[in-house]
């Protein structure tokens, strides 16, 4: 412990945050935004009375939730080029960058988890609200957009944010695709300088501070919302 080298952190801190943390935060933000939108659509599909909408949505959510994220990452890393080729009608798999691939993967993966949260949110709105919406002449989309979803979001904001903190931690798994996210950057410096102890402890500390800070904010928010309601 005596030869703990703080200097290696100081030397690489610019690289770690400029390259690594930027990637991690961008990926988190894009996947969270896309995941919440797609997850809400999936939740609406699951709650639909049309079987052809609810069955595929349920199957998708259950499938994604029963396999590990790492396997999903590998799946999409190899599958996306083929799907892309199929969409644009190209005979050979198209090239998809590591960043695009990981954004697509995390969006599609987290959508399954966000959809479960949004489903609970939509179901927490009393049926009378929906009936009232229809009674004043709104159609399905208007009722959803103006009556149900705003309330559902409001109720679910703390849980959605908690899931986003989990997503932030999960993005570290792109390590397996040798992408330079925050952990990837720390790992590269660690391997190069032979300073595994310092870099991994520092990485753990940074992840902890960000996640812990955000979770405290969520806790505050939860209390605030609970009082208003």
């Amino acid at each position, binding site marked *: *412990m005596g030869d703990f080298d703080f200097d290696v952190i100081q030397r690489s801190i610019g690289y770690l945050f400029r390259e690594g943390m930027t990637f991690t935060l961008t990926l988190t933000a894009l996947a969270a935004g896309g995941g919440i939108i797609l997850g809400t659509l999936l939740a609406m599909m699951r709650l639909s009375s049309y079987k052809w909408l609810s069955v595929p949505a349920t199957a998708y959510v259950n499938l994604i939730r029963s396999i590990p994220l790492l*396997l999903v990452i590998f799946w999409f890393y190899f599958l996306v080029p*083929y799907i892309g080729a199929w969409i644009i009608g190209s005979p050979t798999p198209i090239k998809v960058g590591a960043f695009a691939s990981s954004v697509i993967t995390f969006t599609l993966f987290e959508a399954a988890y966000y959809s479960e949260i949004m489903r609970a949110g939509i179901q927490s709105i009393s049926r009378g609200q929906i009936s009232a919406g229809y009674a004043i002449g709104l159609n399905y989309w208007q009722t959803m957009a103006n009556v149900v979803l705003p309330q559902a979001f409001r109720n679910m904001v703390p849980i959605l944010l908690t899931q986003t903190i989990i997503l932030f931690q999960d993005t570290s798994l792109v390590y397996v695709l040798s992408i330079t996210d925050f952990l990837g950057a720390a790992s590269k410096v660690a391997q190069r300088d032979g300073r595994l102890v310092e870099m991994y402890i520092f990485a753990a500390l940074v992840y902890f501070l960000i996640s812990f800070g955000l979770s405290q904010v969520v806790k505050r928010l939860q209390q605030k919302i609970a009082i208003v309601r």
Partner: protein
Amino acid sequence: MNYNWNWNVFWDMAADGTGTWGMTLFYGVLWSLAAALCAGIIAFVLGSVLGVMRTTPNKWAVRIGNAYVELFRNIPLLVQLFLWFFVLPELLPKGMGDAIKQMAPPWASFVPAVIGLGLFTAARISEQVKAGIQSLPRGQLFAGTALGLTLPQTYRFVLLPMAYRIILPPLTSETMNLIKNTSVALTIGLLELTAAARSLQEFTFQVFEAFTAATLIYILVNLCVVMFMRWLEKSVAVPGFIGPAAVGGAH
């Protein structure tokens, strides 16, 4: 699409020459389950202790329990495994660190994986145990102590038996999470199911066969866990309490 499907790849000789690719996947499942089982035992015992600590009237026990949960919940599992695998041997006294590093191949990554997964999952289980105990009416604790039971006895004979029954459904999903999380151990070299599928893909280029097989196996394992837990819930249900037996048919 010009992709060469070859579902017979599972009967081909594996790269390590000890058996077919099917056997590689099978051993992968065994390693996944073994890691999940060992980590699960650690997580269950430690999680229960921490969960109980967080409901006791002792302020310091609550603080220590809360600190543990915050610490292990706010660091990504992958980073935690790296800490156990790369960092711990360096921080221990030299002899001990070297002994850990020189463990025979599967164990050198299996042991840190089990410790990491176990301590990580313990934080989550302690949340469930705490919630289970707190969901019981306060009168249960008073009744226990009024009967002359000590606090540990009240926990042992009154609170915990009901709390565990209440939290069986969330424990089911924690068990499935744990099995899925064993895949993270591939980053420290454990040849579990996802790693086995990955090596099949790397050596034979049969991407989709490999990952389809792994996906189906994970789904199968999940189904087994769900069925086992449902059976367990039914067999330990206390008659007269709201549980799976009473709900019946509602699904």
